[in-house]
């Protein structure tokens, strides 16, 4: 059985941290016998990846004046944790996003690059007018 947590909120930057902290809390429910340091790192991976994904959902919404809704779903299975971030922004396809030019040290454009680096799998798809970004990582000690 998979437990699912769902959080819905308006697309404002001020709520990014609510989703991010929810990810940390969810990760901490993983009662693994694994190393506490590993668990902290696992929790931080989700804290950061969710912050990046939700920030994108806010930043790239159609109209900043009439803020849309964002939904974050967190699922914890026996072997992995999965977070889906859903928004109604214009369609985008993460396989088409080029990596940032790290050595030029840009001031933005790191979001998807970071998610890919710290998650095991990052996918995006379009469904009924929603962008769904799905991030998955194996639980520590599995």
């Amino acid at each position, binding site marked *: 059985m998979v437990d699912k947590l769902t959080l819905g909120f308006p697309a*404002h*930057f001020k709520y990014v941290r609510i989703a991010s902290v929810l990810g940390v809390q969810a990760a901490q429910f993983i009662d693994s016998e694994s190393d506490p340091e590993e668990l902290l790192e696992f929790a931080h991976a989700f804290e950061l990846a969710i912050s990046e994904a939700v*920030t994108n959902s806010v930043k790239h919404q159609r109209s900043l004046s009439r803020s849309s809704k964002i939904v974050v779903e967190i699922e914890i299975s026996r072997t992995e944790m999965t977070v889906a971030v859903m928004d109604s922004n214009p369609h985008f396809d993460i396989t088409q996003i080029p990596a940032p030019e790290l*050595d030029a*040290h840009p*001031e*933005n454009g*790191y979001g998807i690059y970071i998610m890919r680096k710290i998650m095991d799998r990052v996918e995006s798809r379009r469904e009924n007018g929603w962008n769904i970004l799905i991030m998955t990582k194996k639980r520590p000690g599995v």
Partner: protein
Amino acid sequence: MKIYQKILEDVCIIIPHGRLDASNTHYIQKSLSEEAEKEGRVVMDLSSLEFLDSSGLGAIISLLRRVKKNDGDMKLVCPADKIRRVFELTRADRMFDIYDDCEVAAKSFPRGKA
């Protein structure tokens, strides 16, 4: 987000507290007085920063560039492991001297500048 400031002799020390993300990067942008920006001896003490994402990092990089424009520099102090990881992932660690101690960082600036 609270950003404390401290002047150590001629060095401006900026101490952001809490979480730095897209909701409060503007505080980082405003954290440097015009004078300190011209003087160009800036230390950012990261020991009280609890969370940083790439939006926050972008603001820190942008501040560094402003300081460097006046031939100054900004040093970093004591990022927690999870903060340091963001610098490393993005290679931004290569842009900064990172110290364990504010006073050592403050003393590291070349003296006798105009």
